């Protein structure tokens, strides 16, 4: 994709695609190709996924290895000087998100995006806690509830893109951090108060 005279590699998925063994490899191939053929070219990860592919065949083949491979490719691209920016433009769920946007230099989202690990009814079933309790808590505690604002508050999403998308992309690329600032952001924004503090305590422990 050409953007303001600069070429970007765009890697992503559409229509809530589940990330299976094959799709993870396809995405990894695009990242590897960018590293090999176009050193330094920025990479934009466009995220819309229902999460990892829930099939036994994928498990047998080692979907966790394929997803780790994708994550390792993105991480290496960062270390070789590619700016890697994630954008959740529709939906992001757990396994499909962790080795894409969440391992980029930074991950942003559109305001209407949806991010979650699991829906509240399913979460209630798994945790054996009532939906009412989870709904109630989700109003005050961003840790539980689905929602892009909660991920912003916890630092997992750096910012929401408002207004003109081209300007937002331009700014996002220019200001993507090189180091992982998410725990710090979560503390500053009040959505994840303990992560940065506990990390610091481990560093300081006698």
């Amino acid at each position, binding site marked *: 994709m050409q953007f303001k005279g600069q070429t970007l590699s765009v890697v992503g998925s559409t229509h809530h695609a589940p990330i299976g*063994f094959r799709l993870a*490899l396809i995405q*990894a*191939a695009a990242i*590897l190709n960018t*590293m*090999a053929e176009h050193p330094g070219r920025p990479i934009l990860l466009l995220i819309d996924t229902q999460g*990892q592919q*829930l*099939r*036994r*065949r994928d*498990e*047998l*083949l*080692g*979907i*966790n*290895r*394929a997803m*780790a*491979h994708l*994550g*390792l490719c993105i*991480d*290496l691209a960062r*270390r*070789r000087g590619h700016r890697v920016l994630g954008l959740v433009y529709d939906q992001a769920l*757990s*396994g499909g998100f*962790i080795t894409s946007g*969440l*391992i980029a230099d930074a991950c942003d989202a559109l305001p209407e995006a949806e991010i979650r*690990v*699991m829906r509240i009814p399913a*979460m209630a*079933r798994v*945790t054996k*806690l009532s939906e009412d*309790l989870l709904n109630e808590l989700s109003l005050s*505690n*961003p*840790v*539980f509830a689905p929602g892009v604002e*909660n991920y912003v508050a*916890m630092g*997992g999403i750096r910012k929401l893109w408002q207004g003109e998308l081209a300007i937002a992309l331009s700014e996002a690329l220019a200001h993507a951090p090189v180091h*992982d600032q998410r*725990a710090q952001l979560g503390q500053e924004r009040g959505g*994840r*108060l*303990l*992560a940065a*503090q*506990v*990390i610091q*305590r*481990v*560093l300081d*422990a006698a």
Partner: protein
Amino acid sequence: MSQNIRLSYAECSARERVSHLLDPGSWHEWLPPSERVSSPHLAQLGVPAAFDDGVVIGRARLAGRPVFIAAQEGEFMGGGVGEVHGAKLVGLLKRARLAPPTERPDAVLLLAESGGVRLHEANAGLIAVSEVMRALLDVRAAGIPVLVLIGGSNGCFGGMGIVARCADHIVMSDLGRLAMSGPEVIEATYGVDEYDSRDRALVWRTSGGKHRWLSGDCDTLVEDDVAAFRRAAIAALDRPKPLDLPSLQAEHQLLSARLKLLPEAKHEIEGDEATLLWSRLGYADAAGDAPPSPEPRSVRWTGENWPRPCSARRTAFKKTATSCAARCSSKARP
């Protein structure tokens, strides 16, 4: 450590593993339970917290070498990663990377036992797992190898299954399991014909240590014995893997080739898929070694993808010891 008594790794707690795996008397824990670093999110849900949030971190010596260790406790929330649990892992990894020469470890050991993201604090857990992943790769980039040991009865699932594959070296027992989604979750989504979670042999053929060793997803397969894990960890200390463009291109070729080994359409497969995959990987007789199939036990879901066993854990695997690990270990991978 006695040379004569075999101590089941699966049946040990995280603290027991740490104390038996490492050089006697060398263990020094950071943020021990006395500091009461707990999850603040569980009390609101009426769920008991743990004073270590289910993960033990610190430094020790292994065969005289300085190492950092984290051990996840499967008995607490299935080893699920919450905000504090994840931050302890990130802190340990960050400390390894930033350590002055006097403290710098020769390796970081992750004794993984986890269902993945702890759903009770799902959003924080998901971000935390991704922070662990990045912190782990920072450690590797700093030239410190990361070893993952998997042999607990909860396996290593979800985000932690990905984290494990980001490490330099994986040691598993044949009782260990390494995967993404647990069989119950897949069965609940696509039905029992897709994945029968009660078929223990099928579960182990799909995610167990032997399968992972045959497919090269783990580097060393050992018996369910803490001393065997210790020997394997020592042997892996000085074998860092490169993490560069050629190595990732090679990994890509390997995985692309693997994808072609297994037809996508089920009707093209006669018999068992795992057996077919093994034979195409060059293990014609691998199916002869019956994978362990532990007896079904009562389970409840607490982790992202895998149900944690209830109190039956201590006995669940006692009857499952097989000699398949020994037979596998004697074979060279093609």
